[in-house]
């Protein structure tokens, strides 16, 4: 499938990858779609903890987006790169319609749940559960390590350009960090020392939005 005009194609560890404007990663050669930090059930978790009663629609909004990306890329494999659920109880509390929706998306696909810090442990939703996954030259895990050819999430990077901050991918010669895909997720500025240290000097930030827009990663 040719990559849409709004996506950004690049090479990592000799794998041809595509950053979609939605924040998902597409690997056509492996028919793989990867998304990170869905944080499904965040509003429920906050309500349960006696905090704010946020509008309980983020599961719907996130699944709508994922549904559209799956429809467009028709992947044989979907990798959810951790923090897919805001916590394990949130996975258990998923409403029936959301559960059915997920089941429909998962049907006929190899679906991998990578464990994150929010959802360490198996969830009863089907699919495979793993701490990490290596496919050819690439390793998928939730939090970046110094490994080479690594795809991770966790940090929710966001970068500012032209007065607006947007979630972004961070890419250097060795690794890719995905933006948070979930609807109720904030961001960590790429100027944060953690990300500045993690990424090499030549790193790119690929902004999400109407189109995936690459720019040099802003430096402090």
């Amino acid at each position, binding site marked *: 499938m040719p990559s849409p005009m709004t996506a950004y194609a690049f090479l990592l560890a000799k794998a041809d990858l595509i950053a979609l404007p939605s924040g998902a990663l597409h690997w056509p050669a492996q028919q793989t779609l990867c998304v990170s930090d869905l944080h499904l059930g965040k509003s429920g978790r906050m309500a349960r903890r006696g905090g704010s009663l946020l509008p309980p629609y983020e599961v719907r909004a996130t699944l709508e987006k994922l549904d559209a990306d799956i429809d467009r890329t028709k992947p044989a494999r979907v990798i959810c790169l951790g923090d897919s659920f805001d916590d394990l109880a949130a996975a258990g509390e998923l409403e029936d319609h959301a559960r059915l929706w997920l089941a429909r998306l998962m049907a006929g696909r190899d679906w991998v749940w990578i464990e994150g810090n929010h959802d360490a442990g198996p969830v009863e939703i089907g699919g495979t559960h793993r701490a990490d996954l290596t496919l050819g030259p690439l390793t998928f895990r939730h939090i970046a390590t110094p490994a080479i050819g690594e795809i991770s999430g966790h940090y929710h990077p966001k970068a500012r350009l*032209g007065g607006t901050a947007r979630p972004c991918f961070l890419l250097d010669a060795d690794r890719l960090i995905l933006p948070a895909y979930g609807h109720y997720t*904030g961001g960590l500025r790429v100027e944060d020392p953690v990300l500045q240290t993690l990424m090499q000097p030549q790193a790119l930030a690929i902004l999400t939005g*109407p189109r995936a*827009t690459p*720019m040099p990663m802003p430096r402090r």
Partner: protein
Amino acid sequence: MERVTPATFIPPEIGDWFDARGWRVRRHQLEMLAMARAGRDALLVADTGAGKTLAGFLPTLCDFAPSAGPAPPDGLHTLYISPLKALAQDVKRNLLTPIEEIGLPIRVETRSGDTPSDRKKRQRERPPHILLTTPESLALLLSYEDAPRIFAGLQRVIVDEIHALADSKRGDQLMLCLSRLETLSPGLRRVGLSATVEDPPALARFLSPTGCAILTADPGPNPDIAMLETEAPPPWSGGGGRYAIPAILEQVKRHTTTLIFHNTRAQAELFFRDLWLQNEDSLPIGIHHGSLSREQRERVETAMTEGKLRAIVCTGSLDLGIDWGDVDLVIQVGAPKNVKRLVQRIGRANHRYNAPSKALLVPANRFEVVECHAALDAVRDHTLDGEPRGPGPKDVLCQHILLVACSAPFTADALYAEVSRAGPYADLTRRDFDACLDFVATGGYALAAYDRWQRLQHTNGLWHLRDPRAAAVIRQNLGTIIDTETLKVRLKSRFGGTPLGEVEEAFAATLTPGDTFLIGGEVVRYESLREMTVEVTRQPGREPKVATFNGTKFATSTMLTERILTMFQQKTWPDLPAHTAEWLALQREVSRLPQPDRLLVESFPHDGREHLAIYGFAGRNAMQTLALLITKRMEEAGLAPLGFVATDYATLIWGLEPVTDPAPLFELDALRDGLEGWLGGNAVMKRTFRATAIIAGLIERSHQGRRKSGRQATFSTDILYDTLRKYDPDHLLLRVTREEAERGLVDFSRIEDMLARVQGRIDCLRLTRVTPLAAPLFLEPSKIPVQGQGRERLVAEAAERLMRDAGLA
């Protein structure tokens, strides 16, 4: 001589104290006493220096006079609320003088966020007779379980500077708290103290909807007010009035103490710096505004109290109350925007009651000469401006319901009755009240709720917190003041450098190391961002960027706007200074002057962008709405608008493509169709929603604290807004946001009036450069971005440029 009746009888020890100071009890002070003895609520309207505060406390002092009979029982007798912590401190000092000199058995204490926690605890255990506090501290006190005991015997509550509180949601919250107090202490009387306002009966209904006496002090003499004459004429455009510095320094020399008011903090900073560059006599002059650190402000306040300063460059932070005695001149730099505020500022000069206040107006540019001229006329005519107050906002009510729930379980019927006794909520329908209660209890979502989606539970007819531990979080989030997100500024040092103040986060985001900006009158160099604090070093002598501060943004009143448009119709302007008359003539020559029955639109390129200036003179809200609708139509027409700014008389829109034929943009039906759809999605509504969501308790303020710690756990309220619009469009908070917008921002009826008046007579002039009348628009704060194809084009271009520069493309 006043006739002494039982109602106005002054206990001898208090009368003697007045005599010993050579004072007479004034008429309005006696009337306040009579009202108190008659058990009536009262609003006192008086100029500064009329002994307003003493008038408020006199009945309390009389109650405690030994000769008046047995002392009132121990416990809280009088509660005093002021909008400023500093004012409460000041009033305490002034109150202690008579109490100590007369020897009255009264304990007075203050309470605010700064009060040490052990004293706060003691105050709850054993309240003083008089407690001086702020609306926010009162709200917090009322949220405690022991509130009924603390306030059981309360006799009087005095709201100082009530005119200022009534201008914001703080006033709505306070009035709800007053109703609560009256439930806890049914004999309670409400007293309001106000500066001169345009509609005292409306303010009285706000304070007490069930009949409140209005007392007016004798007015002082007319103020001595004029425009400052300068050798250099004011510039065509430009803010801050720096051209007038030599003349202003001359005035400072001639007076004991001068207050130099500015409309924005940024202007105050720039002016202060330039003032010092020209201050050859090194007159001691300080600066004071709300973005400076507390240490900095206190230093200036102390120096002022000790008479060590000859002038202070300040903003609205000195609009209220603290009595600094020796101020004998007020200078207002920049157009006053609002006659009522001007009159109140003038009152800051000369607190001696019978001497006229002296004030000078300094227009910052030629347009402001016209504005100042209109304001002077209005002051001389004794006309005050003001917009009528709308009904109490529901987000404040939602917060109040949470507050009540923290204190004790309640029934909906009783709380509804109590809330209806607050002026702003006197006309609240039961249906609206129930909707607020449902929102507080369950979130009020259309999606079926679950057990866990409950903040309040309803058992045995009583509403109560599902989880009592939630009270602590609710208390942390009380209050209606919404701060713009700001970052602290510190001098870089290994040991945590001196705090200098704060700047808006959006401004900080534009800084790169090496950039310089002004704060506290100093030029500093941006070094780094460490733990969400901007670290700077001193960098004297560099040309600085202008920092943005979220000072209060003033809107010119409708009355002034109309006076200005009328003035434009004159053939010549003999009353105006020659330079300004020439400037208006030039505008008439190169373009036109706006007329009441036509709409003037100018289109011109400037600084690489296309601009469209629309002179509608319909007031800021209507001009802003017009800008939102026009930019939407421009977006549809592929004109790539990037942003706009609205003033009371005009809207300036900038974008990537020129507008050659504006008439289709102004079709009324299309504008009206656009209203519903577009208003929903724009940045102004999102800003309004954020404030509403915080006040109503949908999101916690402390989230912001967590954000500042650099965590990625929080997300923008824009996401919540978009989510509700998509999945739950009738949700209460969206309704409240729309109401706020209609009240504060939209004013669509004024656009319709304007377009009806104009009847398609639109004059569009294509010009090669900025016109005299358009120039001041470039200085307006509160620029609003338009998110659309124009911005996308810019983002793409900027990213490409960066990639090219980095050798990556």
